[in-house]
């Protein structure tokens, strides 16, 4: 991108471009269908197609069905381990969250630039990760107050806190609780953005190195290219780990709401 200016802007990949209805306004809010929305849609459709493989409902599963069942079993086990028996009712939400983020991260890493398409990683936008984090946090709040009422505030007083310490501990715990949605959303956004910027910068080293001559190409371009291969593998790992961390932390927070400590 921006090749004609011979200058690679590593941040350009995050630019949101309206594709349809650039002037589609609802109540003063612009809700244009952008490349970001397109990739959300692609992610959802790919996830839906993936899940179709799990709908064969055969007694002896094939590979695809087995894969889908492994993912649902993974989330089910995670919730059972972290929340307990009541955790099962959150499987649909945590599964949707995990798979949506995982597929978004992986699809954003597809090397579609080779065929002239630009994959867009919407998880590298804090507007998106923030909304997901707020949804998780809202579930925690709603479940917490629904189940425990004002007793939910005892979450901020750890078990066995001496009485004189409560005025100090309570605000600390409250702040650490309130910071959760920010840390949850920012972690994913930063990890995805950093990875993509790194790949873009390294690729600009490869291109600019070779453009500057064979000497620079061998000295800078080749090592950068080798490093890129390694970073790509690392990014695939990060894509999975960040989705897992998001789902895991959401389930841990839900555990706080379900079972006050």
């Amino acid at each position, binding site marked *: 991108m921006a090749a004609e200016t011979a200058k690679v802007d590593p941040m350009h990949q995050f630019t949101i471009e309206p594709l349809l209805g650039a002037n589609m306004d609802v109540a003063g809010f612009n809700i244009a269908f952008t490349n970001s929305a397109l990739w959300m849609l692609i992610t959802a459709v790919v996830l839906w197609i993936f899940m179709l493989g799990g709908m064969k409902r055969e007694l002896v599963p094939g590979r695809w069905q087995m894969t889908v069942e492994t993912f649902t079993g993974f989330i089910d086990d995670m919730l059972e381990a972290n929340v307990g028996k009541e955790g099962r009712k959150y499987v649909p939400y945590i599964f949707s969250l995990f798979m949506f983020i995982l597929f978004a991260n992986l699809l954003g890493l597809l090397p579609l630039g080779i065929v002239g398409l630009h994959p867009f990683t919407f998880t590298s936008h804090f*507007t998106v990760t923030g909304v997901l984090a707020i949804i998780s946090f809202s579930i925690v709040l709603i479940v917490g107050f629904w189940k425990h009422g004002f007793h939910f505030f005892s979450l901020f007083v750890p078990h066995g806190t001496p009485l004189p310490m409560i005025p100090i501990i309570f605000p600390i715990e409250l702040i650490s609780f309130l910071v959760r949605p920010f840390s949850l959303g920012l972690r994913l956004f930063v990890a995805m953005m950093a990875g993509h910027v790194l790949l873009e910068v390294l690729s600009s080293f490869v291109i600019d190195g070779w453009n500057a001559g064979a000497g620079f190409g061998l000295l800078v371009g080749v090592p950068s290219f080798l490093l890129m291969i390694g970073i790509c593998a690392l990014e695939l790992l990060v894509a999975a780990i960040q989705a897992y961390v998001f789902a895991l932390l959401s389930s841990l927070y839900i555990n706080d709401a379900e079972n006050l400590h």
Partner: protein
Amino acid sequence: MPQIAQLAETYASQIFWLLVIFGFVYFVVGRGMVPKVMDTVGLRDKQIADDLSAAQSARDAADEAEEAWRKRENANREAAQALVSEAKGKAQASTEGKLAEVQARIDTQLAEAEARIEESRAAAAAEIESVAAEAAQDITARLGNVIVTETEARSAVQKAMAHG
């Protein structure tokens, strides 16, 4: 950084489409498909558990049947053994009875025979005595012209015979 530079113009679109599409994912995939997939897994687990428990109960039944068979077998064997030993005892008893009877018969026969022998011997001894007495009477009469009465001769013979 487009995330911040474009924030004002794009946040509404981002949030709107995320809610729409994540909502679709949650309701169609999460609520629609995931429970069915998990049902399938649960059904399979249940079937496996059922099969396993059926196998276990079948094995238990087999063990029970074997145990019962073994008990019956042991009882039968014991009964047979009892029958055999009873028959043996009966046979022994009857043998003993018969033997005792035969023995008794033999004993009486023996006793009779001995009595007969004794009788014969006594008769023979009496015969010998009288013959010896006659002979002694005769001998004394011939040799010493001594007339010995039959009674004297007989007592002398008896004395000699008692001395052997």
